């Protein structure tokens, strides 16, 4: 169990890193993009870059303030 936990922690740190909020924003933006494309017929190519830039700025601001 302890080994499983440490493997999980390693992969979490490997992919997600210091700020999990960035990962949440990316996944949410992708879900919203898919919804807009498939349900509303909007070619929302701009949504993911906008969310990524905002998430990066937000994360940096949090890091530099703490």
């Amino acid at each position, binding site marked *: 169990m302890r080994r499983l936990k440490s493997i999980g922690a390693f992969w979490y*740190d*490997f*992919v*997600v*890193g*210091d*700020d999990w909020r*960035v*990962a949440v924003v*990316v*996944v949410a933006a*992708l*879900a919203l*993009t*898919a919804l807009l*494309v*498939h349900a509303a017929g909007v*070619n*929302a*190519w701009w*949504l*993911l*870059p906008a969310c*990524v*830039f905002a*998430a*990066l*700025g937000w*994360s*940096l*601001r949090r*890091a*530099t303030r703490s």
Partner: protein
Amino acid sequence: MTALPLILTVFVACAVEAIEALTIVLAAGLTREWRSTFQGMAAALVVLAAIVAALGPTITLLPLTALRLAVGALLAIFGLQWLRKAILRATGYKSLHDEASAYLREVAAAKAAAPSSRGRVHDWYAFTLAFKGVLLEGLEVVFIVITFGANQRNVGAAVIGAAAAVLVVAVTGIAVRAPLAKVPENAMKFAVGIMLTSFGIFWGAEGAGVAWPGNDAALLVLVPVVALVALCYTVLLRRPQGVRPASAPTSASASASEEVSSS
């Protein structure tokens, strides 16, 4: 996209990881003993090769849309992690990665460790240090090779880029017998963060069903835009001169895994 941008992107990304692995291997080899260091390195390379051989062909069997969505999301998250660290280093909020000081920390820890042998391994410390260093740095290389290669349906080209990077770094390291401290590693990490994030956005959005204006040519706009945004954040957040960044850890007991986590 042709194979050349794929090979170059993988080459630069893998070179950064190879430089960090080289620092650990040199510390183990020059301070302890080379035979056990090479055994550890070879064991790690076998594990990494097995991962590529197992995952590479399996992943390419997935439908391209699902693959791009999953890989795009992973690359964007992974790339943003690199970019965030690179910007924090460039602005002075995080200490710059310094191979020379990393090497000195590893050497001090290697000198302090007691000798012990297990089975055919004469120096267990040198073996585990080299194994952990190469495996952990190599996992990032494997991740990049598989994601980029699978998405372009060209794992072979990605492997060529990675192998060339490892070869160049290894040959240079053997020639100078010292950590490659003069390589502009932090600038390279900044560039790799930009590339990983850009490809992640591009493939992730494509996987979600988006049709990029200009198709693949959109990447030629996306990469400079991501670079520009990253540079703007760097300028905006730059610390005033005279404010010292957080100092690098100086403990002689810093381990290989700590070294990897700071990369």
